[in-house]
């Protein structure tokens, strides 16, 4: 079924910026791509590196965990193009505000920059974020000097509260993390975007290229995609697909789609002979 992609296919377009679109601004950061990628779940680092290139992304999430002392040289940073990529460390796995703040302290110690993806989990089974903890963690991490990108449910008022707490970007989930089911409630995402003064980035849930195009057509500012790329059968090819679908969705939003109709409307004029 699958045909082999050539070794180094051209990366045009990297992003909608190649079509004159404004870049994605998060706090003081400027990203040319509206797609942020992750570093989890890849079969191996070389595949990850190729997929990162294919994605066109210039921002990438990483997580903090114990060093593997048996393989101290096994350093993920050796496999990320730090010339192009800005790091976005996350607080994944934290269940309390205190844990998230502690991760923040460590991020500062490690001099990883000022960006942080704020994630406070509230339920072990569904891994859904805790609305109240996330607001509080966002407030504290912002006070510590971080540019917070806060991961949350698609609760419309919650997204507003995160913005008020200092989030530089709000990142509602489309569907449960790793579920790959796309944006389950497009109405909410649209209403969240309507009300927002900071960028809205859909984080979690997209599973394939069309999910990315659909999400961008809702008017959101960007996407964060990890599992859909890393767990595809061919992650590099999927990264190309998702890069282009993100651009396509953005242009489609900007181009202004045709009106929907219940009934038909001929694309060819009536027959006259």
């Amino acid at each position, binding site marked *: 079924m699958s045909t082999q992609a050539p070794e180094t296919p051209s990366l045009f377009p990297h992003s909608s910026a190649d079509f004159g679109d404004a870049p994605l601004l998060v706090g003081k950061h400027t990203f040319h791509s509206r797609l942020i990628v*992750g*570093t*989890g*779940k*890849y079969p191996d680092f070389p595949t*990850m590196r190729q997929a990162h290139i294919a994605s066109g992304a210039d921002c990438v*999430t*990483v*997580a*903090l*965990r*114990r*060093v593997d*002392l048996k393989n*101290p*040289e096994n*350093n*993920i*940073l050796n496999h990320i193009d730090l010339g192009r990529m800005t790091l976005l*460390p*996350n607080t*994944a796995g934290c269940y309390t505000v205190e844990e998230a703040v*502690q991760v923040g*302290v*460590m*991020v500062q*110690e*490690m*001099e*990883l920059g000022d960006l942080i993806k704020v994630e406070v989990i509230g339920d072990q089974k569904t891994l859904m974020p805790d609305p109240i903890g996330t607001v509080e963690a966002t407030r504290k991490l912002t006070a510590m000097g971080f540019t917070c990108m806060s991961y949350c449910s698609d609760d419309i008022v919650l997204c507003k509260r995160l913005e008020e707490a200092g989030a530089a970007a709000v990142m509602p989930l489309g569907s449960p*993390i790793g579920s790959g089911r796309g944006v389950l409630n497009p109405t909410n995402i649209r209403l969240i975007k309507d009300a927002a003064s900071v960028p809205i980035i859909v984080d*979690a849930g997209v599973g394939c290229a069309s999910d990315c195009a659909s999400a961008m057509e809702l008017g959101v500012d960007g996407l*964060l995609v*990890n*599992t859909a790329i*890393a767990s595809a059968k061919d992650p590099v090819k999927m990264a190309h697909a998702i890069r282009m679908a993100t651009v396509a969705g953005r242009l489609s939003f900007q181009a202004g789609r045709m009106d929907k109709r219940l009934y038909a409307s001929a694309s060819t004029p009536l027959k006259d002979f």
Partner: protein
Amino acid sequence: MILTLNGEQRDDLAAATVADLLEELGLGTRPVAVMVNGEVVRRAEQAGHRLSDGDSVEVISLIGGG
């Protein structure tokens, strides 16, 4: 001296301070953070922070995530 290092009991380490420990573990150039007994030991304090028998030490760095 026995330490709990990243969850494992270790009695084979010579390091007297946090800074020593990082060097002994060969983690010199890599960004890491260290917690001793649940508190982050900031970089400026690592040379002066002496390890004691029974300390629980976590050495943290980056891994893949989403």
